[in-house]
């Protein structure tokens, strides 16, 4: 299954690369409107055509990739940063009241449909990229907490942990020095998956107008803008739609490939 990894990495890096390049160069300024040249189709002076304001779609996709990647990356960071310590802590205190509280708290967050709550959060606190990041990030916490707790629990029963305990190391030290390195593979794989979900969530939020606000381009809003134009300018919907599909596909393939590549045993122990 190495092909998955290669294809996935390739697709992902195209978009990461496009996002990085957009910091220094885009074919046209992404906010520059050129209304007389609106709705031009693909292949002309503007490679991917122009939108209803005559903006260059390729430039918008490149800068939009930046928005998507930034939102998803920080959201995954929030999830990992808070979720993993919570999960490891719960595993260390396995069976205690603290463990119970953390895990039931996780269940509570899980019980809500994430996108609906994300909409609620952004609707209450105002629509912005920052609030979108927080809303998506919150739902990443239980994912990482649960997965790290699950993996840590099985590790805690292993002999080398027992040896560390006998040597007098504290639970916190064991968690950081022995458990964490052993769950990293798992976290990387899960991180990739969550990353792709984050991109989807960001697109969804900006589609309903709750993500990054104009003039910052975002794939979801490009899709929303294209809605009524589909019959006259299909490329306006096609391009951002494909960008979302290919990025999410790439990330998923990469996550799959990484899982196989990093540790085949994880497939067995995975819950």
């Amino acid at each position, binding site marked *: 299954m190495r092909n998955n990894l290669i294809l996935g990495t390739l697709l992902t890096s195209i978009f990461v690369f496009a996002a990085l390049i957009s910091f220094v160069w885009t074919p046209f300024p992404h*906010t*520059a*409107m050129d*209304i*007389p040249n*609106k709705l031009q189709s693909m292949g002309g002076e503007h490679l991917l055509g122009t939108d*209803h*304001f*005559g903006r260059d779609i390729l430039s918008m996709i490149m800068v939009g990739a930046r928005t998507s990647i930034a939102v998803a990356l920080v959201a995954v960071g929030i999830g990992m940063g808070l979720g993993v310590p919570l999960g490891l802590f719960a595993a260390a205190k396995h069976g205690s009241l603290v463990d119970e509280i953390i895990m039931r708290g996780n269940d509570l967050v899980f019980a809500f449909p994430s996108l609906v709550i994300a909409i609620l959060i952004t609707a209450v606190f105002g*629509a912005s990229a920052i609030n979108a990041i927080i809303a998506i990030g919150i739902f990443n916490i239980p994912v990482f907490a649960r997965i790290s707790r699950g993996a840590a629990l099985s590790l805690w029963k292993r002999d080398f942990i027992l040896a560390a305990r006998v040597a007098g190391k504290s639970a916190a030290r064991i968690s950081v020095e022995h458990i964490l390195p052993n769950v990293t593979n798992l976290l990387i794989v899960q991180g990739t998956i969550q990353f792709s979900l984050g991109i989807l969530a960001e697109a969804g939020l900006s589609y309903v*107008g709750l993500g990054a*606000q*104009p*003039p910052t381009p975002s794939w979801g809003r490009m899709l929303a803008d294209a*809605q*009524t*134009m589909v*019959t*006259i300018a299909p490329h306006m919907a096609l391009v951002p739609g494909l960008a979302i599909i290919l990025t999410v596909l790439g990330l998923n393939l990469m996550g799959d490939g990484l899982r196989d590549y990093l540790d085949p045993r994880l497939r067995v122990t995975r819950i």
Partner: protein
Amino acid sequence: MFHLRSLILGSCAAALMAGAVAAKSDITVAMQLEPPHLDPTSAAAGAIDSVLYSNVFEGLTRFMGDGSVVPGLAESWEISEDGLTYTFKLHSGVTFHDGTTMDAEDVKFSLDRINADDSVNAQKALFSAISEVNVVDPTTVEIKLSEPNGNLLFNLAWGDAVIVAPESIDNIKQLPIGTGAFKFTSWTQGDNIMIEKNPNYWGTPAALDMATFKFISDPTAAFASMMAEDVDVFVAFPAPENLPQFEADPRFQVLVGSTEGETILAMNNKQAPFDNVKVREAVAHAINRQAIIDGAMFGYGTPIGTHFAPHNPAYVDETALSAFDPEKAKALLAEAGFTDGFETTLDLPPPSYARRGGEIIAAQLADVGITAKINNVEWAQWLETVFKGKNFGLTIVSHTEPMDIGVYANPDYYFQYDNPDFQTLIAKLNKTTDPEMRTQMLGQAQKVIAEDYVNAYLFQLAAITVAKAGVKGLWSNAPTQAIDLTAVTWAD
């Protein structure tokens, strides 16, 4: 045998003829906004008038599709020499839909209700000159004014001045009882309002037996429902980019007319930096109207340079005063002390003229150094924070009321323009009945607000109606917010 055959032939012919005669007698009209309730005399929401004006409720006078004011429930009137007494002769034999008669008492009730202390009428100011309403006899009513008002007949045609009955006033918000050619049937909230033909109508009866108003707010759904022929008419069609498709399709007709909707970029005249006329002038020069009309409305709209409808004979073209000139805008900003520009907010309500126009305006303002942070809001929020709270920097809205230049004389109006000279001018205008004098004063008023750059005047909203090819008798212009179905028929 011969008999039988002729009988069969005869009945076939009769069936065919019946088919031809029984043209479609119901219609489904779609619009974007649903009315919050059904009392046109106690809310500013235009959607109420759209459904009920002329169809269900009528006033003493009424608007026609071309904007003229003609007699409504009043058959004729006389104006006293001093312009202070109007005597209206009402049509006799008019009944409300609940069977009660409409007479001078109801007129008095309706007009007194507008001017009552606890009145919630949205256009109370239009009728403030009325000092007394007297019932002379059941079909004669006398309106006394405290000062002459050249606009009274026009104002009485507004949906806010329709005649209601004291018998049915308590439930009017759910069960509107009027005198119109249609009576209210049902309201399924969130979906539709149905009205049916009033068989006892006093005037020319409606051709249709039934009409359904459907509420479709999403532009994509609007396009889809029209294409699928789920609705027969879409009034104020929200996606102008799709019009060429309807025009090319023989199943449909597209009516493009004028509205009273002056679309403006409103500035908070009491809030820095917009309290500085130089800044407002700079904003006006930074804006390219044609780009907004082409980009946001796909070419539908007429540029305006002041708060007045271009199709009105009294219109003065002031667009040159605020011509697109980014260099001048920058120079003006520098003069005002904003060499590096400034930051402000731009609140955008849902219609596409605002949301799309706003994105274009933000880009145009950015070119002269003004950073306008876009803030998309829903209507309820807009009414609360912008219109009532006056807490905004810039906003885009279309003022769809007819002849509403008078709002600039109200210093408490949301953009807070406070110019005593202008207020005196409007007060004088309201007292003037001579048409020529009025035209001249209206021109002067337009000039004052254009020269003061109160707001940036963008364009006159076009009335865009998409209908099935067979629908006849629709208004193509929108002199007031109304979807008058009383003269609508289906072509055979």
